Structure formats: C-alpha cells, structure tokens
C-alpha cells in the first residue's frame, strides 16, 4: 500500500492510494452526499456504478465533474467538494430524479426511510420542482409472497442488481431497455414468482426508495388479532430481538427481547412464543440426522436447511444435490407444526381456529410459509409472516411507547429457549448450535467450552475442523448465496470434503435479512446485531439445545423419539427440483 497526499477543500491529507475520493473525504471528515453508492464493508457488497451522479466533485485539471464514489485518488489531486458548480450539479441530479418519481411520500411504504427523500431534504429541494415532464410507470409486481416491485419509484441506482448478480449470483434483476425506458426487471419481464428468485430480499434491503419493498400482511394480521374467534399465536425469530429497537431509534445491537414480548401482548396476540423454541427443536432433529448419517454411512456433508432462500436456491441451481441438505423444516415451520398439533391438543384449542404468525427478519419466510408441502392437515404450519420492519410499523400503529416498555417473558411452554437457538440469527450460529449438541451425543462428554470462535466472523466462506472424540469433523460455513454457490460447486466437483455445512442466504446471516430494519448501507449495524446475538447467548444459563426442558417434554409427551416417525411426519420436509429460468 502506497500513501499519497491530496487536498480536499484546502485540507491536506495523506491516504492510501487505493482510496476513492469519497473514502478520502470521509477520512477528512468531509461529507459528500451519495445515493447509488453502497459499500457493505466486510460483507463484500460494493455498488460503484456511479449512475446517480449525486456525489459529483470538482477535481483540478479535469474538464468534467468527477463522481467521488468511483474515482480513485491520485498523488497531488486537488479536490473541491462544495463549489457552487458541484453543489448545483448534485442538486440537479436529485431534481431530475424527483422529476421522474411519484409524489406520494406521505403514503409511501418508505416514508421517512427513503434515501432519496432524505437527500432531497438535505439538499434543500423545496417548493416547486425545476424540472417536470413525463413519468415512467410500470405494472406493479405483486406476483410473489415476498417482494413488491413498484418500478415507478426506481431511481436506477442498480444496488439491487449488484446484490442479485454479484453478491447472490442469482441473476434475476438487471437493467432492461434503454434511455428513459430503462427498467430493472427479470428476463422477459417475468413476474418474480416465475423466476429463480430466492426471495432472499437483499434487493429490498438495499433499495434506497420504495421500488422494492415487502409484500405486507399487516392488515391481515390485524384482522385475525381482532377476530374473537381466532386464537392467535405469535413467534419471533432470534434476529428480530437484536434489530427491532432500531425501528424506534434505539442503538443498533440493543437487545429488546423483553420489550418486544410486552409489545406483542399489548397488541393483542393470545400467546407470545419464541421461534427459538423451534430452533432448539431443529437442533435436536438436525443433530440426530447428522449423527444418523455419520453412523449409518449416509450422504455427507449435511447441509443446514433453516434458510428458505437457500433452499429455493439449491432447488433451482443444484438439482443433483437435493439429497444432501438436512430434511429438517426451518425452526418457525417446526414451531407452527408443533403449535397446531401438540400445543392445540394440550390446551384444547381447535387447530382450525389457531393462527400462527411469525415475526421474521426475512422475506423468503413469507414465500416459505406458502409452500404447499409445509402444511399439516390442510392448514398452513404458519399462517402469516411479518418482518421485523412490519412489526415495528404495527407497534407504532398501536401507539405503544416501545422504548419505555417494561420487559416481560415469553409464554410457556413454547417460549423456552437456550443460547444455542439464539445464535441461529448470525452466520455460523446454526452449525455451532448443532455442534454443541452433536459433540455431547457423539462423545458422551460434557462440552465445557461451548463457543466455537472459528465458526464465527464475516469471512464469506469459513471452515474449521473440530475434534469430536476421535473424529475430526470438518465444518464449512457460507453466507451470501454467491459464497454458497462456490462451496456447492466445490462439493459437486469433489474438491471439497466436509461433514457439515451451514449456509445462510443473507450476508451476515439472519441479522442481515431482507426483512430487517433498513441499514442504509451501514454494515456496522449488522455487526452490532451480530454482537448482540452472541451477547444474548452468553447471557443464557442453558446454551445447548438438548438442555431445553420444554423441548424434551414435547418429545416425551408427544413426538416420541428424536428423529422418529412422528418427528418425521411433523418436523421434516422434502425438496423439489425447480426450473432453471
């Protein structure tokens, strides 16, 4: 790394020569507004297309203004970020974008969370727009259960394209057409439901406007809550409790489990349960399956199957490997199955009147809950999935002062959980949780050091060899579907040789899910949520899934043996090869 000296607004500074003007400006504490630019740091997602032309600056000796996000510095460069010329150009780019953007901020899904809205406000765009003319309008895509596409609001920042193509390697969204008619679309203008889209929602997570949002089911959930005939059970995923606070201006990484349960009760849910219960259950089944495969010469590696985007990804892309993922349903689906059978029976509730609502950090869970095979006796295991963001909205709608709420506990029996289930929310967590249990089962010894630090972190692909008794268990972890693809291709070609692999579709795992509060490009937020996940785990007395007493009771009273027939019927699923288009 070479250091070079540059001048930004008359301030001299020395920075590494690979910096862009924007990075150098940050170092000099000079703020340059950006819009299309995105750099998720350790998550390795960079959008540097320089398409919006907002971050334009003056560079001495250059004929034209330079986009600071995509222009590398050179030694002796003299940069001015706030000249009238640069400021006017910046403002004009925003005004031009606004001239082709619907004026419905007040009722927009992204009201007060929109980067364009904020930028316009920051640049002082007020009153009448200077430029006016025709507006692009497209059919709204509501074909899927997960992603709502309203391209009228698209500003062609191409962040979604970068996530979909470069990070997730799904190749669903890309620019189509040209000039003013350019639009981000799947091939052949197919609706999302007919594509290979995994509904990971990373496009939604990074969309600066409301061009891509979730298909909301807030109204439906209020309707069932308000229906006296219905017994409405809510469960919350591990990653929700470390992010929900952001919806109320709390510091990222604040753990709000107790406030969340209080709020859910105040909103009128009949029971407030924890998906972590389902996660502990998942570990029992998945660890059993792993041990079974290991001891009976079954196919290895075993792949985790908690992530529905990942499941859909391999169904499309790796049809020849459909026998290696674990057959375990995802935790919230296991929970739904148990709630509508065991719990309903035990507490004498008519399953037909029971509604299970999942609060998830995820958009693919919406799609997953509608998969036909994930239903029991004609009733969905899970009836509605709302995202962390939607829950935030519902709490605000309820007039609850979230920040000042008293803590409360989950209801029992489906509210008990261990630290192992909490870490499902971060990349590497599921496999670490599985290992805590599998280790004890395989060795018969008590695992003293439960934290496997080699499995943690944000490297795209991680591997570790863990000594379990005499066996050296080789474990792989990938997050982000692009990394997953690499790992799967290595398995397909025989290059890679693992016993068990965890894959999460979203960079960072569920804490970085497509249904989480918008991070606006700040990957530090995702890191803080991850830290909170591990803090929550560390604070738990029980940190191994098989220590969950209520889960054990469930087996004793209802399911019978681990990985047994009843468990198979309720807690396991199968996969379908899907078209490649």
């Amino acid at each position, binding site marked *: 790394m070479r250091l070079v000296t540059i001048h930004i607004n008359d301030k001299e500074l020395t920075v590494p020569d690979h910096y862009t003007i924007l990075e150098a400006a940050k170092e000099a504490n000079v703020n340059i507004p950006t819009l299309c630019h995105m750099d998720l740091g350790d998550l390795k997602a960079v959008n540097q297309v*320089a398409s919006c*032309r907002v971050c334009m600056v003056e560079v001495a000796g250059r004929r034209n203004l330079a986009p600071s996000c995509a222009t590398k510095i050179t030694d002796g460069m003299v940069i001015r970020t706030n000249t009238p010329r640069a400021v006017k150009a910046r403002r004009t780019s925003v005004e031009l974008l606004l001239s082709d953007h619907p004026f419905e901020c007040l009722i927009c899904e992204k009201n007060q969370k929109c980067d364009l809205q904020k930028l316009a406000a920051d640049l002082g765009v007020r009153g009448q727009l200077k430029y006016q003319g025709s507006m692009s309008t497209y059919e709204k895509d509501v074909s899927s259960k997960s992603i709502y596409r309203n391209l009228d609001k698209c500003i062609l920042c191409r962040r979604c394209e970068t996530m979909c193509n470069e990070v997730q390697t799904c190749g669903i969204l890309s620019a189509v057409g040209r000039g003013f008619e350019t639009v981000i679309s799947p091939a052949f203008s197919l609706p999302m439901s007919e594509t290979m889209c995994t509904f990971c929602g990373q496009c939604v997570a990074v969309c600066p406007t409301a061009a891509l949002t979730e298909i909301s089911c807030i109204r439906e959930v209020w309707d069932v809550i308000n229906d006296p005939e219905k017994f409405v059970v809510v469960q919350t995923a591990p990653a929700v409790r470390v992010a929900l606070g952001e919806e109320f201006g709390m510091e990222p990484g604040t753990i709000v489990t107790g406030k969340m349960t209080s709020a859910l009760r105040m909103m009128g849910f009949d029971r407030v349960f924890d998906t972590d219960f389902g996660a502990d259950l998942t570990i029992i089944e998945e660890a059993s399956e792993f041990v079974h495969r290991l001891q009976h010469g079954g196919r290895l590696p075993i792949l985790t199957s908690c992530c529905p985007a990942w499941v859909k990804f391999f169904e499309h892309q790796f049809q020849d490997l459909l026998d290696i993922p674990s057959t375990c349903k995802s935790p919230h689906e296991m929970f739904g199955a148990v709630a509508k059978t065991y719990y309903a029976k035990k507490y004498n509730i008519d399953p037909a009147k029971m509604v299970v609502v999942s609060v998830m950090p995820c958009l693919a869970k919406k799609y997953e809950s509608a998969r036909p095979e994930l239903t029991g006796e004609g009733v969905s295991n899970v009836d509605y999935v709302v995202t962390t963001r939607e829950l935030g909205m519902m709490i605000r709608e309820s007039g609850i002062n979230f920040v000042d709420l008293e803590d409360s506990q989950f209801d029992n029996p489906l509210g008990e959980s261990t630290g192992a289930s909490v870490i499902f929310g971060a990349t590497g967590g599921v496999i670490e949780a599985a290992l805590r249990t599998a280790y004890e089962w395989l060795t018969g010894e008590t695992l003293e050091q439960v934290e496997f630090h080699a499995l943690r972190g944000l490297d795209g692909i991680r591997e570790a060899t863990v000594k379990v008794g005499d066996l050296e268990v080789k474990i792989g972890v990938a997050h982000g579907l692009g990394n997953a693809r690499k790992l799967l291709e290595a398995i397909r070609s025989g290059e890679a040789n693992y016993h068990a692999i965890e894959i999460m579709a979203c960079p960072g795992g569920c804490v970085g899910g497509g249904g989480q509060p918008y991070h606006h490009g700040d990957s530090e937020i995702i890191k803080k949520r991850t830290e909170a996940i591990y803090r929550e785990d560390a604070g738990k007395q029980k940190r191994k899934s098989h220590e969950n007493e209520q889960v054990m009771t469930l087996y004793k009273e209802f399911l019978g043996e681990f990985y047994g027939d009843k468990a198979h019927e309720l807690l396991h699923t199968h996969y379908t090869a899907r078209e490649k288009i």
Partner: protein
Amino acid sequence: MSTYRMHLLVCGGTGCQASESKQLVENLQAQVLMAGMGNEVQVVTTGCFGFCEKGPIVKVLPDNIFYVEVKPDDAEEIVNEHVMKGRPVSRLLFTEPSRNEKISEHKEMPFYKKQVRIALRNCGFIDPENIDEYISVDGYQALGKVLTEMTPEALIVLMKKSGLRGRGGGGFPTGLKWEAASKNQADVKYIVCNADEGDPGAFMDRSILEGDPHTVLEAMAIAGYATGARYGYIYIRAEYPLAVHRLEVAIEQAMEMGLLGENIFGTDFSFDIVIKYGAGAFVCGEETALIHSIEGERGEPTNKPPFPAESGLWGKPTSVNNVETFANVPPIILNGAEWFASIGSEKSKGTKVFALAGKVNNVGLVEVPMGIALREIIFDIGGGIKDGKKYKAVQTGGPSGGCIPEAGLDTPIDYENLTRIGSMMGSGGMIVMDEDDCMVNVAKFYLEFTCDESCGKCTPCRVGNRRLYETLTRITEGKGTMEDLETMKELGPIIKDTALCGLGQTSPNPVLSTMKYFWDEYVAHVVDKKCPAGVCTALLSYYILPDKCIGCTACKRVCPVSCISGEVKKIHEIDQSRCIKCGACHTACKFSAIVKK
C-alpha cells in the same frame, strides 16, 4: 494486374450495390467476354469511390475516365465504344453544374480536387476481396517493416511523432493510447477495432472496411506489436453485412498467407483477429460500453478511469481504436511521421474523412486535410447548397455535435476549433442545412436520437436529456415559454458536466449550439408562436393567395379532411379550424397560390 491492358473499376460499396452495381459488373464481364477480350480487360469490383451522389461509379484505367450514374444497361455501350474503340461514352461523364461542362477525369472534378486521400487511398482502387491487390499497393509492407526493423518502443515514438489522433471522435493521440497499453503489464492484452459506426448518415468506417479491409487488419497487427497484444477484436455492427463479409474474406486470406496468426513474417510475433457483432446500440461505440458488449454484458459505459489501457476487455490492458484511425497507420509507417505531420493543422495532423450529407449538391464521402475551412468542403467539394437555396448551418460530429452557422464557415476544421465553436469532430458526420430547416426542430431531432440511444444508466443523460427533449417538443408545438429557454440553457451544461460517458457529455450540444447561433428562431417559436422556416406544423398555417388562385380545384380534391371550399374558377379558401397542415394542397397547387406562414 499487369497482364491486362485495361481495367474497369466498378464501385461495389453498399450504396452503389443498392443501385444495381452488382448487375452492372456482371453485364460488363459478359460484354467483355462477348467481345473476346477476357484476357485483356479486367472488370474489378472495388470499394467506395466516395461520390455516392452520382453512383454507381465506373472508372476506366489507364484512361482515367470516370463514369457516373451508370446503369447495368450501359455496359454494352461502355464495352463497345470505349473499350473496343477507345471512344469514351460522353453521356456518362460527370457534368460540372457550375460550368455545365463534361469532365472525364476525376482529378479535375471539384469533388475530388481538394481531397487528400490517405485513409481512403485504396477505396475505389483495389478489389477488397483480393489480398494480392492489397499487397500490390504496398499492403502488409508496414507490418513487415515494424516486425523486422523496429522495436515496439520505436514504433510508439513514431506514432506519437506523427500526431495521429483518434478518428472516432475523441481525438486522443493514438501513440499515447498505445504507449499506455504497452506500459501496463499483463499476461494477455487486446487490440479492439471500433467499427460500431453509429452516427446517422456517417459511413466512413463502413466504406473503409468494404473497400480496404486489409489495411485495418494490418494496422491492428501493428498495434498489437506496439502494445504487446496477442489478440484483436473487431466490433462491428451486424447491419454492415458487406463489410463483415469482406472482413471475413480478408482475415481468411491473411491467415492463409501467414500475415495473421502464428509467427508473422517468421518473427516471434503472433496475432489473431476475431469479429464480434454489435446489435446496433449507438452507445456501444463508447469504448467501455463496447468492451462490455464484447464480454457479453449489457452495452453500458463504466466510469473512466480506469481507462481500457489499464483495465479493458476481460479486465486486461486494451487499446480501442477506430477504423479510420487504423487506416492511417500503414501509410504513416511507410512514409514516415514527418510526412504525416506535414499535413493538417498545428494540433490536428493528417486528414479526416467526412460523410457529407443533407442539402448539399455532392453527397458523399470526402477526405480532406485537417485545417481546411468548412466553406471549402461544403461549397467547393460539396458543390454548394441544393436548388440554389441559402446555407443555414452545418451539423458536424454526429447526433451530439453542434450546428455551425454562416459565420463559422471559415473556421479551419480541427478537433479544438470545432469544440470551441460548440460542435465537435465526432466520427465525421457533416449534415448541411438550408433555409428550409428549422433549427429548433433540428435540435429536437438530434435530442430524440440521443434520448433513444441513451443506455439509461446515469441520471443526467436518462432524465436530463428527456427533459430537454420534452421542452423542445413543447416549443415546436407553440407551448414553450421564455422560462423554458432559460431552463435549457442551465440544464444543458450541467448534463455535459455530469453525464457518465461521451454520449451524455455531448448530447446537449445540438440544443446549446442552436440556441447560441439561432436564438431568434427560438424566440420566434416561443414569443411569436411562429416557425420561421415553416417546418413546425403546429406553428404554421396554409393560406390561399386570392390573386394567384384560379379556382382549378386541385387543392380541394387532394385535401384529406375536405377543409377547402370554393367553386370552379372561383377563389378557394381553407378552413383553418379544420386544417391538419398536411401540406397536400401546397404540393398540389401548380400556381404557387398556396403559401405557408
């Protein structure tokens, strides 16, 4: 060629082929055979002569007789009279309109007199599908020379000294481009020939590829040697089938003779060329977009730097040069840098090919020394304005060039001067306009083109140009305001300053230059709601002059909406409220009784 006593060179360019020059060649060949002179007279299909206005062209050597507008049926007379009896066919000679006299030699024709042909030197002279003919005019000698006598460094020094600049529009010094690519170390490098000629009306690259494909191949190999590139790509529009065909033939022939491929001229240097088809997107002429298109990506530009010389095709150092630029390379090597630098102006050396079109008498391809005045091109070479009308403007540089008024006609043409007066060199389109052209409408036309061809990536080009176009449309419809003019004046320069690629950075030029030079015309549209040139239909009305109308009813009969009333031999009248301004009555009236105002 030496075994024949006479050659009949027939233009086989796309334009002349469209006027049956293929049939003409067949007829000439048949006539020659019938006359029993198959061993004495050779009929050669050549590339474009440039004088497309008067095609098909036949040139007879060694007599140097130049026939124009030759039909297939004229073959018999040419052979019987000229070839057999030595009597040139006078009726097929070019008539100089100003003096109304027949001219037999092309050198005497004003169209050719002021031209200096370097890039087009072989077009219209050799058979492009025969490598021997190219070799007979010193073809591949330059390649031989650089490979056996020069180091890449010396070659780059020579190119820098020649002063050759990119002919695709940018005007970047070719030697510097090669030097940059040569300095960047990589396991593989590429040469790309930009043959994605997209300016409406421009066809110099096509003509070179059709008329002299080997010169481009030779120059690409030379560039490969200079930069250390092993492979070359020619990115050419799929709409140029003849050029593609001739390139394919040329590559095959050059491969066969060892002039491309492994160990050229027995040296260590190897070079292969692949043809890539473009789908016709204008923006793919921009080098980064072109590179993405070759890679199979969306043809969309990316921010520069990094320049292709650093990170180009597949991320490797790449030099992208235009067809015409390449065509200049072999002569520079054979004749020396000093020779080339002695032609042209101080900062722009050599010649430039222009596609002269529009309201000018001699439409065609002309190659002139840099520094020549626009007036000379339009009035001397081009033969002035059609139908004796008054010159109004010339639009240079393609759709994002500017319009130059009468006052700019004496500007010596070079890169800097054209930019200074609000236009640009571009790839060499030159469209002449007369008093009947509305400059607001012209600006609108070009903006419509750039809006259509914008890739849609950056905001200023995608939305900004659209807003300019919409404003211009409003003005031509009589709905513009003075505020609109001010808005355009403000927005145009910002688009130029902020757009991502050359397309957007130049697209406001037609608006800005016409506003600068023809401000009154804009004001007339906005304030008086009139189109002085009578082009913008919303702003004009057709009237019948009572003193000229004889009541012949011709106008009434052609009016598609029956809005003309009047009886036979009585003065007719147009109902303005129903008139759709189609102009049919104006055309039908034989007594100039209908005027548009």
